[in-house]
């Protein structure tokens, strides 16, 4: 359980990061952020990058701040930064609620928000948050900068639209209106394990009915995404137990469930149904 040999580079600025990537990516170079996903797979030699570009000493990358109508999260912002609300209002609370479900404390003190997005594990809570809320991702390379919408970023199981020389410098989450309701629920075998299914819902109540429902499902398909069918069930309706059951059914019907030796498609759909309904139940004021 020792990684294959590699060379580590420690750039101090974003420019140095992208030029190092441009130089080493073609020789199997990769970014090292918190290392909480990369290092374990290197230890198993399932990944064997020959160069690591360690971004842990790049100035300013840990920035978390409001820029206009979104929250910017720098590439070195750790999960642990979200334990307490990073900003006033609903979004800060939502992130603080979700973060406690990610792994265990020591892992949260190293792993990064952007690393989770770049790693694109289908069960990643941050990928689910990004997909549900509609994150914009700031991607940099020596070729310049582009801004990618999350649905164009997450492509599948541990795969994104990042080119090999591209660096995810920042994630931007839209701020949520003050009257937004949210609910999150995830199912895993043990506390801290990767979710086997998770749901994040947000909506507003206007005159007692749901408007602008976002229903995101993670851990069940090859990537987290919003489920329009479940949102359609909710929009325009007053919350009720039956409505939430119906939304759960709609989500379970809509997903293309991942299967493995232990988990049948049918069981995964059971979980989607349950987590959707429970996230909705938790969203009630």
């Amino acid at each position, binding site marked *: *359980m020792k990684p*294959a*040999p590699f060379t580590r580079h420690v750039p101090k600025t974003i420019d140095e990061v992208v030029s190092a990537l441009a130089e080493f990516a073609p020789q199997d170079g990769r970014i090292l952020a918190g290392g909480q996903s990369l290092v374990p797979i290197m230890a198993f030699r399932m990944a064997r990058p020959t160069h690591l570009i360690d971004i842990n000493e790049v100035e300013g990358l840990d920035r978390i701040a409001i820029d206009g109508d979104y929250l910017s999260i720098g590439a070195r912002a750790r999960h642990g930064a979200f334990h307490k609300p990073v900003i006033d209002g609903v979004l800060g609370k939502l992130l603080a609620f979700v973060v406690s479900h990610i792994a265990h404390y020591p892992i949260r003190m190293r792993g990064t928000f952007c690393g989770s997005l770049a790693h694109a594990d289908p069960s990643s809570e941050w990928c689910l948050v990004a997909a549900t809320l509609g994150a914009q991702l700031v991607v940099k390379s020596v070729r310049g900068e582009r801004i990618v919408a999350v649905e164009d970023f997450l492509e599948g199981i541990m795969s994104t639209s990042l080119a090999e020389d591209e660096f995810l410098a920042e994630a931007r989450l839209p701020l949520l209106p003050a009257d937004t309701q949210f609910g999150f629920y995830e199912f895993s*075998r*043990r506390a801290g394990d990767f979710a086997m299914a998770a749901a994040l819902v947000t909506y507003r109540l206007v005159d007692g009915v749901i408007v602008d429902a976002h229903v995101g499902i993670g851990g069940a398909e090859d990537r987290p995404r919003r489920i329009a069918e479940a949102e359609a069930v909710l929009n325009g309706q007053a919350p009720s137990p*039956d409505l939430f*059951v119906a939304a759960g059914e709609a989500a379970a019907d809509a997903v293309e469930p991942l299967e493995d030796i232990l988990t049948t498609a049918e069981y995964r759909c059971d979980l989607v149904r349950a987590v959707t309904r429970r996230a909705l*139940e938790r969203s009630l004021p």
Partner: protein
Amino acid sequence: MTAHTKGSGTTWVGRSLRRVEDPALVTGQGRFTADLPAVHWVRFVRSSVAAGTIGSITAPDGAGIVTAADLKSLKPIRPMLSKFNYVAVGQPILADGVVRFTGEAIAAVYARGKDEAEDIAELIEVEIAETSPLIDAIDALADGAPLVHAEATGNVIVEGRIVTPGFDEVWKTAHTIIRVDGRSRRQNATPMEARAGHAAFDASTGRVTLTCTTQMPHLTRTAVCDIIGMPESDLRVVAPDVGGGFGQKMSLAPEYVLLVWLARKLRSSVAWTEDRRENLIASFHSRDQHVELEGAFDKGGKLLALRGDIVANVGAYSCFPTTSGVEPLMALAELPGPYDVRAYHCRSRGVLTHTCPMAPYRGVSRPVITFVLERLMDKAAAFFAIEPTELRRRNLIDTFPYTSATGLVFDDGSYKATMEMAIAAIDLRSFRKQQQTARENGRYLGIGFATFSERTGYGTPAFAARGMAISPGFETVHLSIDPSGFVEARIGSSPHGQGLRTSLAQIIADEIGIDPEFIKVVHGDTDRSPYGWGTFASRSLVLSGGASLIAAQKIRAKLVKMAGHMLEAAPEDITLQAGSAHVIGTDRSITIATLVRAAYHQVHIFNGEIEPGMTETGTYDPSGTFSNACHVALVEVDIDTGRVEMKKFLVAEDAGLIINPMIADGQVHGGVAQGIGNALLEEIIYDETGNILSSTLADFLPPTSREIPEIELHHIETLTGNSITKAKGLGEGGAIGAPAAVISAINDALSPFGVSIDEMPATPQRIRAALRSSGKLPSHGRFA
């Protein structure tokens, strides 16, 4: 010397003394095998397939590599049983022409660094012509199945049968027959510290010191020397701090043989530290069993007869020294558990497959048979429409000694009393009310009881009954007081977390009147401790405790005699306490330190009536004693997802006289935690090609502190004549009872659905699948 003055007038036994082991362990001062520096590091090249024939092995030029071709002079590991149709099969130290499980070591690479060894190992190319593997024991039993070892026809390595006379007649009188098809999935004991070995050759003496993480240093020495063909005096085996074993470290690791052989060849030091993946795929597994059980009951719910058929998947080789008979034969002998049943019919087979070899794991078969037997009792209770505890009340043994249908003799215990204690403590009646209310609100709470016996502290007669070529049993203690007045007990047991150094010191302290802080217990070094069997099978406190007591009684007698001489009093008027010998009813006394000095330096004053020095030996080899307990699990099952939440766990147990309550409780806590993991989470999974899918701790899931509920403990102390310290063993009970209690509670919770969960672990997937097939799932909305 320091005066021994802290005595309190009461006994040391029975107090929760802080463990002397802990300060070093909790401050990072513990010394583990992997801490040792070495000149060469070994990495094993392991088979990536389950079955096949090895072709060429190609290594880069200059690589340090060992293969079977280099080891022709070594004997295979071939443990032996003379009974139960046991077929001796051999395990080569490195696979020799054939591989029989994924993870089997094919070659050993050595290099100057760990990383370097791993880099080179990756470059070794092994050609293997794959053959189709046998993974499940039932498939291995099928007609025409390929043979894992040519010697073992039908892949059966051991088969035991017991049929009590007149069985069929009793069976015919049954009012009802209840049946359970139990399945226990494969486990890995997962000690916190995986295996590690370090062999250092000393050129000046020609000796090798093997430091390794073992539970039985002396037997490791014997086995390694037998296999290599070297005198035992040339090998010293040291078990330093060992980070848990649970049985996985009582079986000989072929890797250690290789290390000793290589250290001698290189005339240097070589080391290997197993990584977690190797441990999960290639150390030892356990508990992979199918148990079919039928019980014949009369109309009053009394169990008349039991019929069982046990198939234990023992993997590809037989473990040393117990052999792979250990699981099937334990199951055969102990299946009737603590219930009074006179008619018994059972067949138990150990079946070879292309999987990692089985070795004993805390509880050895009893977690499995207890779970199946308790399912049977619960199902019978449902049939008779009575509380499961009432059915047990009608069947638990309560006259002692009780000789079981399989010939086991149960000494005094409290089978019913612990159950009644548990029922009262958990308040069964109010739980039933709570359960009813919860059900009306769509929540499913369940309670499960497991009553069981735990055979502990058994000596050579019990092991010899199995026909083992090597029959473990006795323990020896060398107890001495040196001229400085400090006491040293050298023991053959090899504790690795159990706190035995503390408990033994308490036993010795009471006998010789010296406080425990002056008593050092030495173990885990074949150069310093007497030949012994190590620590396993809930034996060490009973056996080493008994041997310590016997040695201490001799020391005491000698001190008393000397004190009588020096104080001019009759020996029967002398007491030893708080470091001094006192003449009862007077103020005359002399310190033990003075007496000890005299034994070494003034021995002439005793006119030849006293042997010089202060060393005595105690050996103890008892027949064994049964502990017992009742475990209670409270769970809530989430019927939408199949997830089980542990609400509470309660244990009422009886392990005789408790030497150190805190340590005893710790043993129960740890065992219960493992049992909960066993019942709900842990499973080694092979796919049909023989590849292991649970080769990391992200896939093989031991419980964490967040999955373990509050554990409430209650004790009864039944004093047994079968143990001279009156203490019984309790190392395994936690792990034996907990799985059964948890599974029972799940079934209780799900009783409205008419499902029966008879498989461990009861994963959410399995529970949900059972609920689905019941056709009784509600489809309703509710706010939680």
